[in-house]
């Protein structure tokens, strides 16, 4: 990796998700790549959910940081391969847990649509980030943002967010 690319990574390392300020864009997998092209430097980002309102803010934050560091680079959006929660680092998942959000399970592989909607097979339990209990129940499949579901712990009685596998 050339030093100019390192400089870009370093300039953007501190940027966090506007909704979840404990994890960085890089840890979440939103900040995807920095590359030199014929037209100059490119910072590649990928949207999480199609309609995530934080994406505009994230792009603005990246532009502002690049400008502050005096680095001329373009921000480009790349859709494929589609962002997945599996790209989250273990450190990021631990930070989510400490922040009170249950981290996502690994996305199930090769599950057809027909099987996905079946309610029967009980998947691994979502662990309460407050007390560690597995005695939890979903209260709503959409929480404070599209990427999270709302759960309740039946032991400590605390509600909490679960970052859904995507």
């Amino acid at each position, binding site marked *: 990796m050339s030093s100019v690319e390192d400089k870009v990574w370093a300039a953007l390392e501190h940027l966090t998700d506007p909704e979840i300020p404990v994890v960085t864009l890089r840890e979440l997998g939103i900040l995807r790549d920095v590359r030199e092209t014929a037209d100059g430097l490119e910072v590649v980002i990928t*949207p999480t*959910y*199609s*309609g*995530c*309102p934080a994406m505009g803010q994230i792009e603005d934050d990246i532009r502002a940081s690049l400008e502050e560091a005096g680095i001329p680079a373009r921000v480009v959006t790349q*859709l*494929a*391969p*589609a*962002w*997945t929660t599996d790209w989250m680092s273990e450190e990021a998942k631990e930070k989510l847990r400490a922040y009170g959000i249950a981290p996502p399970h690994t996305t199930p592989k090769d599950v*057809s*649509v*027909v099987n*996905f*909607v*079946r*309610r029967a097979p009980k998947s691994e339990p979502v662990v309460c980030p407050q007390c560690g209990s597995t005695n939890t129940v979903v*209260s*709503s*499949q*959409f*929480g*404070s*943002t*599209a990427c999270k579901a*709302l759960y309740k712990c039946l032991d400590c009685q605390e509600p909490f967010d679960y970052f*859904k596998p*995507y």
Partner: protein
Amino acid sequence: MSKAPVDYLLQLADNAVVLGQRNAEWCGHGPILEEDIALANVSLDLIGQARLLYQLAAARIGGDATEDKLAYFRDPAEFRNYTLVELPNHGALVGYAAADMDYATTIVRNFLYSALMALQWEALANSADEELAAIAAKSLKETRYHLHHAADWVVRFGDGTEESHRRAQAALDHLYRYTEEFWTPSATEDAAVAAGVAVDVRSLRAGWDALLAETLADATLVRPEVRGYVPEGKHGLHSEHLSYLLGEMQSLARAHPGATW
């Protein structure tokens, strides 16, 4: 690279934006707070999907086409969405009758539509049109959760109280006939299949039937018979409801063209 016809992209985008706008009517009016938030999130996903598709369509049209022009400056007859997604959030009315919004109607519609689109996106994720395939792969992840959410509530309503069962069955009786439009390909859809970028929608019907059969059985709901009526929304022949919906959605952009936040 094979490219999907622009009209095909617009049909996908129009469905998403119109249903997104319909579902958003619950924002601040949801039956419970959690559902208010859930429907707003489903709407955000749908509008996000529509934006990606309009952006791709605008790039292919070229010239001064933009996503905003496609969403805000086309008239109802130019929209290619299914009639199903433009219908109001309540049952059929006669004359000047008015009705309150009915959550069962919203849920049953989301169930019928997301069951189709989950299968459709799954197929389009393998499209020879790589840009469309990228959008489909993202949309699939989101639509699965929409389907999960809607199916869950179809069962709760259907297998719930006498009143919730009655309303869920009434919503299904009202909306089901509109799904006939899914299975009657338009010239645009035929062209997309011929170009090798889409699957024949009729090949998805067995999977859709299986999804419905399972959920409706759990919900103790009965699938109504269809009697041959095929809506023609994707040909631009809409119900009166689309004009009112677009009138509201497009008014700001048309009153202040080119305005930015």
